[in-house]
């Protein structure tokens, strides 16, 4: 499922980004919970018309990271990663963006939350991890 999305954007970057949005602790982070699988499916189906916009945003995150901290997003420290995402969220970007950074960031945050908190049939929330974490379900569904 991820293959076609990887084709369009760097999975290492996407993985680091979603894990910065929903970090791992004693419950799975976004990547481990399958959020990248969710996004891969979403941007081939309901959001296919937004796929280029979304991959442009992921590319721009790396450009922003390289300009500010001399490395791709995935190679930065957690504090540096947070600074980058905060800058994009507030629209205070240093590199040239071909798409509106804040609109991209909202889409990124929303779709990541959808992958993490919606039903596992969508590709994310593997093992109902977020439902157990929140208490929506007492235990993972078999």
């Amino acid at each position: 499922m991820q293959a076609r999305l990887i084709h369009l954007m760097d999975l290492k970057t996407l993985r680091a980004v979603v894990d910065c949005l929903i970090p791992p602790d004693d419950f799975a982070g976004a990547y481990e919970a399958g959020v990248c699988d969710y996004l891969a499916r979403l941007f081939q189906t309901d959001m296919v018309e937004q796929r280029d916009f979304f991959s442009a945003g992921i590319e721009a995150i790396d450009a922003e990271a390289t300009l500010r901290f001399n490395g791709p997003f995935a190679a930065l420290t957690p504090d540096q990663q947070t600074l980058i995402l905060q800058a994009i969220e507030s629209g205070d970007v240093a590199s040239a963006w071909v798409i509106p950074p804040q609109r991209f960031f909202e889409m990124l945050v929303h779709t990541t939350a959808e992958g993490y908190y919606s039903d596992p049939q969508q590709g994310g929330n593997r093992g109902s991890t977020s439902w157990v974490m929140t208490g929506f379900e007492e235990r993972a569904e078999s």
Partner: protein
Amino acid sequence: MNDYDAIIVGSGAGGGIVACVLAEAGHRVLLLERGSALSFSDVGRDHLRNQRLSIYGHNAGPEITGNPRVFVDPHGRSRVVSPHELDYHNNAACVGGGTRVYGAQAWRFHPDDFQMATKYGVPDGSSLADWPITYKTLEPFYERAEWELGAAGDGSAISDQIPRQRNYPMPAVPASPQTEALAKGAKQLGWVMSPVPLLINTEEYQGRAACVQCKYCVGFACPSDAKNGTQNTVIPRALATGNCELQTNALVERIDVDERGSITGITYLIDASGTSGTGQRQAARSRVVIVSAGAIESARLLLNSRSSFHPRGLGNEYDIVGRNLQGHLYPRAYGLSSTKVFNGVGPGVTIATTQFNHDNTGIIGGGMLADDFIKPPIDFWYDSLPPDLSRWGSANKKFMRDNFTRVMHIRGPVQDIPNPEGRVTVESDVRDKWGIPVARLSGTTHSATVEAAEFMRERGEEWLRASGCERVWSAQPGLILSGRQHQAGTCRMGKDPKTSVTDEWGRVHAHDNLFVVDGSLHVTNGGFNPVLTIMALAFRSADHIARILR
């Protein structure tokens, strides 16, 4: 030569009941539904594509493609919208209509809800008016809806405000930890409170099972078929008589008239595939036609039924059809409890206050406040987080982890103060898959509605604080077009043909045999979920139509 005694357009809360009453009275009925009959698995449990949260689609019709509408925003900019977008103001299109996937709150309107203009006067710019009937006239039909479909509640709770002759057939849903906290708060504030009445079986009723307390009421279908819509109560009764033919996937294009301008029947299109728009036009003739397609589609059908006799559409000599579109603004309040209040037991909505439905200083109307149906976590994430919480990072995850089970939810429908500019017209430049002009929605509610919503938002916060929440937050939607699943008012009843579309029976003025029976009739929409009122009116109109057909 008539094919049927009655043709009914739409199988929702109104049309399903009319079909049952007429078929059981021995009349030949054609019941047309533009959607399909949906099984439990057809509706499914997709958390992002359902009638409560419709981000990428929904689960109960109409199809996302081929059924556009036009929405005009408050700045006058228009755009084409799809059924899953908020601005489409969708209600489910399937057998049972909205009742297939509703939350099933079974409120009667308050007696004062029928006398709004007398009680409050008519604010500038509004079309506030009294109903042509009183609560007392409708009361026996409320009782009939509660017993024939099956409602659960406590009839003694607010019977001094909203009188009743008979209790509900089933006891109210059980209390939860949230109920106990909120009951304590209401008691401390001296507010009247009531269990929330629901059209849900709390025990076996009419041969169907009791609620299994799952977490998926509103927006979804019921796994034990304990939620009572028209699709599992009155429509099966209608079909059992052998007098009612149900035709699904049938969109009515127009109501037909003869060479003298009298109603003869309808022209409709059947689409078995659901999306192709390649079906054949068919005509059916009947002695009466009953339009029960919901406040938006009923108005669209009347407006699209133009002829040389009725150049502005049927019932529209005075340009009233489609006006006064209303629904409910919903203020919402949230409070963080120090203890867990979520116990995973559905439906989740348990306790309400009707303290503020009327007689609030400086406010026209008001509304009911209640706790809420259980929210799936993604719904909670979108709807219920404090505004000052970051939407990402450790803090967001920690809030979801620590507080999903500790947030108390209050919301409620605010009595809409109608105005003629909130309206449905038809848009010839945009067509559906059949080539039929679509509904165009424009205007907003009246500013008095927003004032009431703000007042109710504050009452929600007050209730949560009194119930032990230290951290409280809230929201209300502002000056927008209401409508959505509580859509109403577009063919209002009245005595004067110049200011109303139908008489008190739903008969369109100037026609002997054309009726509207759905939320379109509501002169005002109460400070309550409107479905039981739609049902009560449907029983009353259906009795009347059965007498005419005799």
